[in-house]
């Protein structure tokens, strides 16, 4: 049974010109690390939240979101709670916003255990101490009694991770877990997440707008644009030879970590907002390869590449385009 299987998930909000998610299909096996890359507003966070049944109440949702076989679309409170307390959990982007500022760290960690599993305070606190130690915080008994404002951003993100691990999940959803942090602590948090993932055999969905980061830490990567998956590939291959014009654009606009700094080529135009819609490929208006009358006419489906069946792309011209090696692939 696949750990997470999202099948043609479409999410529409009243008043928006295009769906927030448009037939998103995504698979994540147990123990696999999958990246979800895209610009702000591309639907990455909504996709991840769907795996916890956290879609906006006003949204019209079709498709399926299977977490270990349980469909969360239209699920009742009991099934949602089952998934949220024991199967999947999320590390949110900004721990300052995500942890209640007026309650102690100990309350944050023990609350779900006591409320949903009926543990005693003593049991829950013992578990919280283990968790704080597991995420590498120096003084767990003291942190338990501290308030969020007494901890640095990096330490607080460790608390957030400890909280996500409290229910022994098998699926960890990480929504830009380092974006709100100082550059110096970002690497530490990523290393921690990687270590926990390997040690516990977690399936992990890593959301990021940093394509290099995704390539370095994931097994496979999905690229999203305007609510759609536009490309899927093993991380190294995606990075070495992106096929979808949008992915090429993303890589061309990322400064290389090593080697000479060449002039960056930004993707022209702006990402499509929820107030805009296009009959064809959502990227056509910004795409240098777009073919008038075809790309702006109907939307391409996400299809496996004939040359590489483990990769897929949603582009009519993917087979015709030159196969560029943007940079050499890196581990």
């Amino acid at each position: 049974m696949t750990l997470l299987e999202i099948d043609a998930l479409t999410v529409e909000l009243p008043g928006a010109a295009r769906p927030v998610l448009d037939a998103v299909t995504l698979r994540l096996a147990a123990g696999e690390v999958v990246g979800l890359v895209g610009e702000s507003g591309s639907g990455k966070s909504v996709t991840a939240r769907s795996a916890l049944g956290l879609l906006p109440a006003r949204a019209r949702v079709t498709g399926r979101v299977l977490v270990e076989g349980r469909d969360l679309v239209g699920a009742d409170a009991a099934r949602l709670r089952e998934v949220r307390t024991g199967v999947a959990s999320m590390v949110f982007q900004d721990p300052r916003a995500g942890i209640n500022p007026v309650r102690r760290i100990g309350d944050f960690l023990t609350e779900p255990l006591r409320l949903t599993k009926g543990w005693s305070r003593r049991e829950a606190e013992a578990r919280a101490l283990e968790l704080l130690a597991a995420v590498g915080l120096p003084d767990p008994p003291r942190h338990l009694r501290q308030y969020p404002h007494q901890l640095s951003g990096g330490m607080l993100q460790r608390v957030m991770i400890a909280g996500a691990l409290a229910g022994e999940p098998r699926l960890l959803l990480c929504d830009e877990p380092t974006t709100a942090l100082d550059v110096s602590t970002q690497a530490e948090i990523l290393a921690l997440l990687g270590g926990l993932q390997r040690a516990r055999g977690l399936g992990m969905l890593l959301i990021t707008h940093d394509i290099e980061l995704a390539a370095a830490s994931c097994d496979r990567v999905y690229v999203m644009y305007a609510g759609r998956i536009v490309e899927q590939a093993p991380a190294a291959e995606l990075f070495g030879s992106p096929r979808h014009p949008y992915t090429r654009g993303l890589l061309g606009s990322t400064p290389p970590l090593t080697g000479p700094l060449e002039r960056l080529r930004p993707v022209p135009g702006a990402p499509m907002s929820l107030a805009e819609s296009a009959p064809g490929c959502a990227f056509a208006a910004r795409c240098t390869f777009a073919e008038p009358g075809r790309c702006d006419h109907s939307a391409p489906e996400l299809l496996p590449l004939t040359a590489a069946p483990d990769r897929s792309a949603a582009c009519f011209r993917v087979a015709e385009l030159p196969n560029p090696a943007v940079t050499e692939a890196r581990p």
Partner: protein
Amino acid sequence: MSVAVALFRKLLGMAVTLLVTSFLVFSSLYLAPGDPVSFLVKGRSPSPAELVAVRKEFGFDQPFPARYWHWLDAVLHGDFGRSYLFHESVGAVIWARLPASLLLVGVSTVLIAVVGIGAGAFSALRHGTRTDKSVLLLVTVGAAVPSFAAAVVLRSVFGVRLGWFPTIGNGTGLLDELHHVALPAVALSVTFMALVTRVTRASMLDELGREHVEVALSRGAPRGSVLRRHVFRNALGPILTVSGLLVSGMLVSTAIVETAFGMSGIGSLLVQCVDELDFQVVQALVLLVVAVFVVVNTLVDLVHPLIDPRIAAGGGAR
């Protein structure tokens, strides 16, 4: 900073506030038109010599600073002087009327807290629905109704037409007193209830949109617990501050309601003594009102760090 030091600072601040107020109160009454002597000798035609004697007896012949000093000295020793009107010590006059007003304020406070916070929370949880809009409309109307208008309507409907409640007096015995205080308390609290409802609703909506609420839900906590532990709990700060301000200022508003309902209390006493130029009582009452205001708000300040640990116990946000 330790809690003891913080407490000492608060108490010092309270003392200074009260001292400044006492000076303002005393000097404003000194400047007010009308001569208390003319009231004292009302109905008689005293000789100039008798007038001088009366002035001397009450200390009206002394210069202002000396009079203030004497008065302050006496007040600090618990002596607020004698009422010209009641021929009794001011302390006794106020003491006799205080319980009725405290009951009125107490019942109103409970009404404000229960109805105001309840309606606000109810409305916030149904944000955007017809129920929410109806509550908002009621609140707007409620906030616009002055207590004397509410008093007239309540008396005529529930007192006279329906005869459910007495329309005048204080009552005897706790149950009877509560029966008597019901309508005045509603009249007194309508406006305040409306304000607390609005603040509660706004504060709850603010907290409902916070990410930590979504995080708590994402971890499987039941919605009811999340609303209680994360939304309402975090919304308490502004609610407490506003309620503190309103309740501490309520003693003044009792003047209108007690007069309208023919109750004997601090408020109606204040009106009466201002009318009759009974300065000693007025001074003591104003000081009392200010003292209550300062004490209640100091208490709110002291409780605040318990609600929001980001506010240091010494006052001032981090």
